[in-house]
Structures are given as C-alpha cells and as structure tokens.
C-alpha cells in the first residue's frame, strides 16, 4: 500500500505541488504533493477544505424537521439523507423497521431506488462517460456530456432519460424532484395514486433495457482497456455495507457486513444501531473530512471502502435476475474473492442501476404500493439511528432528543467520509505509480481526477466538477519561492511557466 506517502518523514527541502481545486467535496478539495529534488513523491494528500457544521446547527430544532433539513446536505442524493433521517426519527416515535406499515416501507424503497438510479445515471453518463468513452487524455473540449450527446447521441440521450426516470419516481412519491418531502416519523405522508403508478409503469420496461445496455457499455469499456483499468488507482481494502439477512444486496435496510481484502468476513448481520461500537472516526489536522475505521482492526488496518464496489463485492447475490447475471460476470472478471479495481466502481455502479430499474418494476406491480395505511406510532424514545445505503455507500444518521422533542445531539457519517482513506490511497497510488519522477503534465492532473472521480464523492457534488474547473499546479521550493506553474484553463488549454 501507499500509506507511507501520507506524511513525509522530512518535509524540509521538499517541493510542494498543489492541485487546487481538485474537486468540490463539501465545496472544495485539493491535492497537495511534496516532491524531492528528483520529483519523487514523498507525500500526497487529498484535503477536504470546506466545513459546514450540520451536526451542530441542527441541534435545537424539533426532530420532525430533520428529514427536510438534512437533505440540504446534498442535492444529488437528498433522498438518501431524507430517508436515513426518517429511519432515525421512526425510532423516536417508537417504530422499528418491522413495525412500519408495509406500504410506507415499500414507498420509501421505491423512492430510494429512484434516487440510486438517477444518481448512478448522472454519475456515469453526465460526469464519467466522457473520460471513459473518449479516453482520459482526450481533448478536454470533448470531455463533457455535450460532446457525448454529439458523438454518441443514443448513449447520451439514454443517460439523460435514465436519470429523468429516476427523478420522476422521486417526484411521484415525494412531490418534488429535489428536496421533496415524503417520509415522516413512522411512515409516509402521501399515498401513491393509481394514476401516478401507471405513469411510472409506462416506461419501466424501456428503462430496464437501457440500464442493461449501460452495463454492456461499461463492461466493454473496462475490458477493452485491460490491464490498465484493473490496475489504475487500485488498492486492496476492506469493504463494508448493508446486506439483507439472507446475504442479498440491500440498499434500504439490512445488517452491516464487512469483509477483508481476501473476502473473509470481519463481521456480519450487525445491527446498525450498534454502529458506534464497530466504527470510530479519526480526525487528522489537514482535512475537514474524518477517517472512519473498523474498531475490530484498529486505525491502521481498519479502513474500508463503501459504495457500489463494496456492495457488489460484499453481497452473496442480487435478488433481481438481470443484475444477478451481471454480478456473476463481474465477479468472474475479478477472478478472486473481491474485486479491488477502483475503476470497477463504474461497472458495479451500473449493475446497481440495473438492479434499481428491475426493483422499481417489481414494487410498482406490488399491490401494497397503493395502500393508504401509511403511518404508525409507538412509544416515544430519546435516541434514533438511521442507516441506509446511499448511492455512494453506507450513510449513518444518529440523533438524540430531549423531553420537548428538540434535537440535542447529532452524529452523521456520510458515505464519502467512509471512502476518505480509499480516495487518499488511490491518489497516492496514482502519484507513486504514474507521477513520481515525472515533470508536471496535464495527463498527470487527469489521472488524479479520474482516480477520485471513480468514487463519485458526494455532498456538494464533490468531484463532479473535476476536469471542468480550471486547475493550477504550483511548484514552490521550501522557501516559498515559486519555481514553476502549470495552469489548466476551463477549456483545457495549458499554460506553463511563471
């Protein structure tokens, strides 16, 4: 692994190279590299430079505001925050998942499948497909969805429509495509009408077909770039996520499962309400993003990855037939118990998108989905924990309230945070394998961006803007003297020199 590059032994006399902004993870992130005189990388860090303080400022609010407030954490996966908070406040009104009305449970699942489908489609088609279709070092003017629409109109438009369908599922269930309000403590606030159900059923076969086509596309891209795609930014890690009790892939509700790099179980079927016994977070001075780790393995060995790659790796099977067939093929490609290729995140992501499309169809055809028995209540409790598999991985919301139902404590572990070490390790891998000893070039920048983007980091859209933003690299000596400068303008034009 590359953890020796996290902190250089001696920082004196090292040159500092900054890639800023690399991305917007909670606003902005940047990569700094420290190089010796021969441009060998001695330190590489992904810094998350923005802080918003949600955990504090939601204190003092009544708990029923939570599902509406916390989705403003993220406009890309607002539904995931909405539902994680809703699952937590269910407990505050005395409702455990098994006591939720079946219709409410199924509507929430439908909502969440819509969310994951639209987010995965967005990430693949709008943001990553240009790199994958045109190549990492293609002309930057081409690396955008507009160029995809121009050169591959069918693929581009299918992507736009896949995302649209996910957004429409969300709108039908929650009233709005972004920041709707469907879930309340103990259930849902609105039934799905027959008319809304039929509207969504109209296109669902087509959507499944397109989702399947997108898996075929990503497989083809991955395989035609071997072994590069298997090795690029690849790191061996532990993986964590929810699975159903029978070991199936699960996105809405299940037990926590973690496996190590050989595929051996670290823990399984763990009740997520016990999460704080199994996961702790380390703070480091150089970034606002914390570093979660599995307490069983400790700070050094316990870091893990979450998200599509982790979920598809971790589960025993997928309970929809088309996605399951794809999973088998995916695992076979990996050839060992776990697939560690970072770029395989894309492949796994689209298998999940297919699973979402299939699951949406199943739910729409479920008689319960039109029921109006939507909300149950039990006895008040003072603590609630909600966990969900957001598009980017396991998401934890934990709240405590007082006698007046006012939030007194909040703890959030968002998906991207769990991938913090993974992203840093991938950046260090790329720095060590592709950059060390080289002079500054534009492909170098791209490689760092592509590595981070594979994780699809979330919150303020995270790295989605990577490659579209102007970048600047500065080479500064230990005295702070500017030695060299490389600027990449937003059109990709490069400017070197002082």
């Amino acid at each position, binding site marked *: 692994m590359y953890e020796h590059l996290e902190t250089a032994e001696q920082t004196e006399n090292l040159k500092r190279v900054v890639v800023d902004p690399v991305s917007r993870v909670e606003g902005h992130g940047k990569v700094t590299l420290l190089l010796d005189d021969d441009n060998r990388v001695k330190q590489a860090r992904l810094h998350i430079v923005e*802080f918003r303080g949600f*955990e504090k400022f939601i204190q003092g609010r009544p708990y029923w505001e939570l599902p509406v407030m916390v989705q403003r954490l993220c406009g890309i996966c607002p539904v995931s925050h909405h539902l994680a908070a809703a699952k937590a406040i269910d407990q505050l009104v005395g409702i455990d998942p098994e006591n939720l009305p079946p219709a409410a449970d199924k509507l929430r699942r439908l909502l969440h499948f819509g969310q994951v489908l639209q987010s995965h489609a967005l990430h693949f088609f709008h943001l990553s497909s240009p790199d994958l279709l045109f190549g990492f070092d293609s002309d930057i003017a081409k690396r955008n969805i507009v160029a995809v629409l121009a050169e591959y109109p069918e693929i581009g438009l299918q992507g736009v429509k896949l995302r649209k369908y996910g957004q429409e599922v969300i709108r039908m269930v929650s009233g709005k495509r972004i920041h709707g309000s469907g879930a309340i403590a103990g259930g849902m606030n609105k039934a799905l009408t027959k008319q809304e159900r039929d509207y969504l059923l109209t296109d669902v076969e087509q959507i499944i077909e397109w989702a399947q086509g997108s898996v075929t596309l990503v497989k083809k891209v991955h395989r035609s770039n071997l072994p590069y795609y298997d090795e690029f930014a690849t790191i061996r890690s532990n993986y964590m996520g929810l699975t159903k009790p029978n070991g199936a892939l699960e996105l809405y509700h299940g037990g926590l499962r973690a496996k190590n790099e050989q595929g051996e179980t670290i823990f399984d079927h763990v009740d997520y309400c016990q999460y704080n016994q199994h996961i702790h977070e380390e703070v480091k001075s150089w970034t606002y993003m914390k570093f979660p780790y599995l307490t069983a393995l400790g700070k050094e060995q316990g870091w893990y990855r979450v998200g599509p790659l982790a979920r598809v790796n971790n589960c025993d099977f997928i309970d929809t037939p088309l996605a399951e067939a794809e999973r088998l093929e995916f695992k076979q490609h990996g050839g060992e118990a776990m697939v560690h290729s970072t770029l395989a995140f894309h492949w796994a992501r689209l298998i999940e998108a297919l699973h979402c499309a299939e699951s949406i169809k199943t739910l729409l055809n479920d008689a319960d989905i039109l029921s109006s028995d939507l909300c149950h209540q039990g006895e008040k409790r003072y603590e609630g924990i909600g966990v969900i598999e957001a598009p980017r991985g396991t998401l934890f919301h934990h709240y405590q309230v007082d006698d007046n139902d006012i939030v007194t404590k909040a703890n959030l572990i968002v998906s991207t945070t769990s991938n913090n070490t993974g992203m840093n390790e991938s950046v260090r891998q790329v720095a060590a394998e592709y950059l060390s000893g080289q002079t500054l070039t534009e492909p170098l920048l791209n490689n760092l961006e592509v590595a981070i983007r594979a994780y699809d980091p979330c919150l303020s859209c995270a790295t989605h803007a990577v490659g579209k933003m102007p970048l600047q690299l500065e080479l500064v000596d230990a005295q702070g003297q500017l030695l060299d400068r490389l600027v990449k303008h937003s059109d990709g034009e490069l400017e070197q020199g002082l």
Partner: protein
Amino acid sequence: MADKIRVATTSLAGCFGCHMSLLDIDERMLQLVDLVEFDRSPITDIEHCTNCDIGLIEGGVCNSENVHVLREFRKNCKILVAVGACAINGGLPAIRNYMALEDCLKEAYIDGIGIENAQIPSDPELPLLLDQVHPIHEVVKVDYFLPGCPPSADVFWTFFTDLLEGRQPKLPYELVHYD
C-alpha cells in the same frame, strides 16, 4: 451562432441541488446547448472563455475560498445571478450563524460520537472559515435572483429563454414559490 449566451456556473456553500435542478430540464438540454455555451460548469467545458454573459452562483459564502471564487465570477460575468435560497439569503447552512463557529467545529471534531485523535483541523492548506455564512449580495453586486430551494427546471428554462429572446426575464407567479 453569434448570439449564443455564454454561461458559467459554480457552487459555493450550497448542496448542488440548484445545479441538479438545472439538469432537470432533461431532454431540453439538447435545445439548451444550442442556445447556451457553458464555460465553467459541471455540465460542459466545451468553450474557452474568461468573459461570460451570465454567471450562475449557487450557495452562500462561508470561507475565504468562496469569497475569492465569487469575486472572480463577478469580474468575469456581465450578469451575475444568485440561484436558490443559499445564494440569496444563506439558506440552510446559515443556521450556523446562530451559533459560535467554534462550537460547530468542536461538535464535529472533538465531542462527536466515536471520535479518535480529537482536534480541530488546522492545517495551513485549509482555507479560513468565516464566522458567518453570507448571502452573495453582501459580497458582490447581484443582477438577478432565482428563488427556490432549488429553483425548478422551468425557472431556469424561462430565465434563459427570456434572456435569449431579448426580453427582461420575468418569472410567472407559479414558478416563484417555496414548498
């Protein structure tokens, strides 16, 4: 296509929901890219420009970096548009204005559940946080405000098409409302 309008967009202390809502124009994107050229934007970087007709800003201002980016946008854009509640009045993130910044940091990095190595991140690589979250008009002059959290896709659509057809943008009442 001389009369394409050139647009740049960015997110400051926002959640990216406003950008997502712009994408919610769905297939109209094919039409939009005929009308509009995107400069700095997550959607496309097809055209190089430093001078834009329109700059769309999502999110309020919460750190020194945001101030810098916002000033740069103001300098390079003829028309600057505050998009969404956060840019217009700070939005949800501005709730932190009622608390001490120090307390927010302590909650996240010191007093949180399951925290190891408790400390407030302090590296010189991290930009300075402002003690308040500000709406963007407190920092630069703003020409238009598109309300909503987020404004709907139809708001963006109406705004662009009005501008392109040389009309003063005007949002019908149904498009200007909160939940």
